[in-house]
């Protein structure tokens, strides 16, 4: 685990400034990266059950000469596109689409790249009616059986179960000014204080910055962003993300499938091992 470039303690941003950068409307979105990583990207649609979720894009492209499945939340740039993409908040169809495309990738032995950038799964009545909880649950379980390497990166917001539903991977990395949290600061404030205006305090308590997550052992690497954050230089950020993702993918490609899946299991099974300071917790069993 390492942080490139500036050392973690050199940041001068407050936690809330990081949250605002992670959500900045000019920040690069999944397609901005995918089109630079794999210019021949071909997008695919639909869960083959009932619909397509525009909040999640998926498709194939050649990446470092290798056919690769790309998945990513997409937020949308104009107001019209934001509405169409539901601000990157997935419905159940999105998680079913992700599992379909992951199984498709497994069939052709394509590795998978997952880019995470969502405030969370869509908190609306329609999502509930169509089974958002079980769609996420099923997706999380299925990721552990997909017999090809998966590398994931949080590129903006990693919000709650909606993000984790796309975040079970062999390696998970984060862009420097991205966040990953059990709930959005607003939702956490609403749950803990019953007052969603206390979001700044909540953000500070949640320890949701890339450096916090690296320290907790939840992500393998933090990718440094250009001075002024990712939004000032799409090319440089995409190149750094590409380099880091491919560096993490390469050793996985050589791993026997059984070993790959066992390591993926252990990655999450013991993900909290760094904080098991309590003697009660005992050894691995």
């Amino acid at each position, binding site marked *: 685990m390492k942080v490139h470039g500036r050392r973690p303690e050199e940041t001068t941003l407050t936690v809330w400034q990081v949250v605002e950068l992670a959500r900045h409307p000019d920040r690069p979105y999944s397609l901005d990266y995918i089109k630079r990583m794999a210019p021949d990207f071909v997008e695919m649609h639909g869960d083959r059950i009932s619909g397509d979720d525009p909040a999640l894009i998926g498709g194939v492209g050649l990446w470092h000469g290798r056919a690769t499945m790309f998945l990513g939340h997409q937020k949308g740039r104009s107001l019209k596109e934001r509405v169409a993409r539901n601000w990157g908040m997935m419905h159940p169809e999105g998680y079913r689409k992700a599992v379909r495309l992951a199984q498709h990738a497994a069939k052709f032995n394509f590795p998978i790249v997952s880019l995470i950038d969502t405030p969370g*799964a869509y*908190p609306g009545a329609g999502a509930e009616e169509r089974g*958002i909880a079980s769609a996420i649950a099923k997706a999380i379980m299925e990721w552990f059986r997909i017999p090809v390497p998966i590398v994931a990166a949080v590129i903006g917001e990693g919000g*709650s179960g909606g993000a984790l539903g796309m975040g079970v991977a062999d390696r998970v990395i984060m862009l420097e000014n991205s966040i990953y949290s059990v709930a959005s600061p607003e939702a956490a404030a609403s749950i803990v204080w019953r007052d969603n205006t206390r979001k700044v305090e909540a953000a500070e*308590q949640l320890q949701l910055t890339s450096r916090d997550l690296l320290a907790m052992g939840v992500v393998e690497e933090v990718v440094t962003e250009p001075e002024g954050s990712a939004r000032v230089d799409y090319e440089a950020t995409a190149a750094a993300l590409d380099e880091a993702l491919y560096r993490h993918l390469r050793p996985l490609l050589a791993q026997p499938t059984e070993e790959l899946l066992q390591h993926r299991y252990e990655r999450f099974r013991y993900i909290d091992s760094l904080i098991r300071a309590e003697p009660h917790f*005992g050894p691995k*069993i």
Partner: protein
Amino acid sequence: MVAAKKPADVRISGGKLPPIALPTNCPGCGVGLDHEELRRHTYVCTSCGHHFRMGADAWIALIADRGTWKERYGDVRSHDLLNWKVPKPYQETLEQLRDEGLNEAVRTGTCSLGGREIWLATFDFRFVGGTLSIVAGERLARGMEQAAASGLPYLLVAASGGARMQEGVLALMQMAKVNAAVGRLDAAGVPYFSVLTDPTFGGTAASLALLGDINIAEPGAAIGFTGPRVIKQATYADLPPGFQSADFQLARGQVDMVVSRPELRRLLAHLLEIYP
């Protein structure tokens, strides 16, 4: 919905359920409650069928054959790892709940049910809203790994508000940890029955609770991902009565059946005869 009937012997394991905190009147129908009668009737209102929430101790007493409960991993304890201070220090919350005799949001162990040995895990909503924490996840995952290895059926009783905010992203990661373990149960061909009680939401609903081979909901239980308060805040939508109720989830294909508590033990014993 199966109507609450008069008690049958198979309903309770033999021992009495422990006393629980109850209101004077039933929130379902307003009738004045006879607490002893209610206790004999598995805390289900005899006039309207309202199911009162039960803690882990009551669920263990209800499910386990008398004298067979062996608690496991009870000494795995949580602590304040994020130095969470507001509105109340997390460490203080934990210690206060422990002083009240509660041992985390999930308790797990082995017991027999109708003579068949099983793994049982039950959430306790009284412990920080039954939230999925590192300790809860660890107890669940360990039990599931043991069940997958030994072939014992796994029974879950869910009651949870979701992932525990005070443990941050590591609480979120428990969803992946337990689902990985559910995958092991699944691959081993071990039966996994999930009983969803009021309420089951958030990260718990979106991980192990809805992944049962058979999902059984209690009548009137609220089950969903996002709670109604947050849905209204986020979308300004008016939710119809019964939204996210057990019957709502039955109609939408998320649960296999809605079974009242006095019938539950008989049903589970029967299922354990059918599933190898």
